[in-house]
């Protein structure tokens, strides 16, 4: 067990090093003149030359890589070409907005997925089962950016019920001092008892959360359903049923417990996708998180920002995977 964890950790470290190497290579072989970009659109030739020295681009590559790793140890991901602010600061500024979105979306996906999956399994091969299975596949086939646009069109354009985008209405942001406890507006507004803010933030959250949660819902639904069906076929389940235990007990107490493993796997996988999808969804809903930050960086070819955020996200993902694996490994039902 400990040996397994140790092995897993070591492996993660190797992977991390590889990730760093790849991102270093990408930031150094860019086809554009980085110094010119840094110096700005109306820079003189003299200013560009000065920028080259300032950025350390006149050093040999191994030296640059050494500096890059050194900077990473200090959580220094470089500075954005556009804003000239440290990428780390900018990621931290957007992090909680994204965390709020991702957590809510994954949670919604998990709950909806498990519910629908169970429902589907219970009514196997009935009409409702077909609907659930079909929608689970539809959910993972939809481009999230398009779904976002379509929902905006319906709920903002036609019904005028929900805002087009943003995290909070401008009027609110301007007139009120926003609480900053956890950075998650929904939680903060509850903690400070500001229900106007809560309602406003919630209204802005609904559409993006739905769009991001669509993928995990589809995935979890499918996993839960097939895992449940597999378990329901086992002898002990048949036995439980034949004892006359209520359906509810059979499903909730026995069957579901045994689906935890596959569901964790599904949600880990879905988490990776939500991280990616936020890129597109945040851009659509101008949600001020790191996904929008990447999308903006891509349009501006702001490589330190692109690679910094990619590196950061990969790091989070690696750690998340590691933790999920360790949890799964400590579950005696999961064979290693």
């Amino acid at each position, binding site marked *: 067990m400990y040996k397994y964890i140790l092995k897993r950790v070591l492996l993660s470290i190797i992977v991390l090093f590889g990730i760093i190497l790849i991102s270093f290579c990408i930031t150094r072989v860019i086809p554009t003149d980085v110094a010119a970009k840094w110096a700005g659109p109306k820079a003189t030739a003299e200013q560009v030359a000065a920028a080259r020295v300032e950025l350390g681009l006149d050093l040999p590559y191994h030296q640059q890589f050494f500096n890059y790793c050194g900077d990473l140890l200090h959580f220094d991901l470089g500075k954005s070409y556009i804003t000239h602010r440290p990428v780390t600061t900018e990621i931290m500024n957007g992090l909680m907005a994204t965390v709020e979105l991702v957590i809510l979306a994954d949670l919604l996906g998990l709950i909806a997925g498990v519910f629908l999956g169970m429902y589907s399994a219970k009514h196997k091969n009935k009409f409702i089962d077909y609907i659930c299975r079909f929608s689970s596949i539809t959910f993972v086939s939809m481009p999230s950016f398009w779904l976002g646009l379509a929902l905006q069109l319906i709920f903002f354009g036609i019904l005028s019920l929900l805002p087009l*985008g943003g995290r909070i209405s401008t*009027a609110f942001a301007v007139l009120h001092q926003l609480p900053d406890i956890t950075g998650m507006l929904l939680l903060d507004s509850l903690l400070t008892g500001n229900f106007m803010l809560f309602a406003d933030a919630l*209204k802005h959250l609904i559409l993006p959360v739905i769009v991001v949660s669509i993928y995990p819902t589809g995935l979890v639904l499918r996993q839960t359903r097939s895992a449940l069906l597999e378990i329901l076929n086992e002898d002990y389940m048949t036995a439980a049923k034949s004892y006359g235990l209520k359906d509810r007990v059979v499903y909730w107490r026995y069957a579901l417990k045994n689906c935890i493993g596959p569901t964790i796997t599904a949600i880990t996988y879905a988490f990776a996708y939500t991280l990616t999808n936020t890129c597109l969804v945040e851009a659509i809903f101008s949600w001020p998180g790191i996904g929008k930050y990447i999308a903006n960086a891509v349009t501006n070819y702001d490589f330190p920002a692109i690679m910094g955020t990619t590196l950061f996200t990969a790091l989070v993902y690696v750690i998340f995977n590691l933790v999920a694996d360790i949890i799964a490994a400590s579950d005696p039902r999961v064979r290693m």
Partner: protein
Amino acid sequence: MKRFKLLLTILVAMAMLLTGCGGDRSGANGGVQEASIAVYSTPYEPILDWDPSVCFSTDNSVFHNVYETLLYYDLNKDTFEPVLATEYSNSDDGLVWNFKLREGVKFHDGSDFTAEDVKFSIERTRDCKMGPSYMWDAVKEINIINDYEVELVLSYPDSIELVASCAYASFIMSSESVDADFKTSTAWFNEGKECGTGPYMLKSQTPGDKVILTKYDNYWKGWEGKHFTDVVFQYTSETAVRRQIMEGGEADVTYDLPALDVLELQKNDAIKVSVDNGLSDIIIFMNTSRAPLNDVNIRKACAYAFPYEDKLKYVDLGFATLATDVIPSTMWGANQKSPYYYDLDKAKEYLAAAGKPNGGFTLEFAYSAGSESWKKIAEMYKAELAKIGITLELAPASWDTNWTRAKSQNKKDRPDFLITMQWADLMSPAYAYKPMFHSEDTVNWNLSYYYNPKLDKLIDEAIRMTAIDKDKAAELYKQCGQIVAEDCVVLTGGDKKDIMIFNSGFEGYYHNAAYKGIVFFYDCSRAK
């Protein structure tokens, strides 16, 4: 099944409750109709660099409310109005400039505004060698005559009044608060510090999101009458969201919306749209360094094939005017008629003169990927050139990639056409002629690779004359324009209008193209 239905009903009910609880889209929370607070919804980050010496971007819309300049240039009247300087004069040779300064002005840090601060600010900006600092290059020394009078001695004649009133590089900061060492002080600024004399001072900011200014009680003009007490610059990049904010009355000012949205907003009673002549135009560089565009006849053929009118009609939707020169027609010294117009027959004549009556070659058109209007221009031009047998290949890429390619030593790497937007950073045609058409040692902005000693001399002379005899200078610039047009090294894509969008209750905005996108909030107020 029953329970499922129940669950569904509850979910739907919850959703309806949530969506219903906050009111509708127009005027959510009644908008910001707070009389004392103005909200500027900015399409770009309100502040990228808090250092007033370095500022060379749209963040000057914040700076001009926090800092002040020696002079204010009114482009509409072509006059210089006193701000921190009460009067000024210059020697006949344009080498010595004398400024008398306003007394009783206090910086936000409480110190008095004196000649020392002017000397400090100009020297700091000139020596930092970043952003717009080159504008002060002519200044050799600054002599303090007394507390309220300074003298600028130049190494070559230059019109310092233009620099002192410029939208960039002209801010006066307190020598008390700012460290003499540039590295230290620029870091200090970027902690979110300022020390201007302007009507507003920084209250708080969230980098990458918003800047909130509040009134400075000791402002020298005083706070009599109707003024905003707070000004918020709120960054919203999405045009659709910005439009929504304007329609909902959540912001007072914005700009840079797509032409289609502006047309829609013009129909809205709650919105005021101000459309005025601006000082930015579209310049498409032609690569004269290699075949086939090294042949002036082919360049002229291309110039006659450009759909000038259609571009105004379909891309700008009327929010632009025909270009008359390589500088905007509203700039002094601009020729008022371009020799080129859309005429495919003429284009064919020139092709024939070049020995290629049927075209038969391919040209590459580089533009910034992601720009909707440039993409349209490229596609329209492609369709026109196809009619005279020239194939246009579209090459969208990031601006930096395009610029790097254009600056390449290898002539084969350079695109044939490169479309750019030029804006006047200095209120003199020199802003365009010096970087774009004057010979340079290493390619930087002369992206037509056009080297003409005769033109170089004319430009230098015009810059010198600007300080001495502006009418003469204007004459010289017109000659420059004619030479560039005769050699046909760029295509002119039209002069853009400045479009500002206001809440209808917002009053006091005075359009002055010299300060594009800048709202002097002290002069504005909200009608009741």
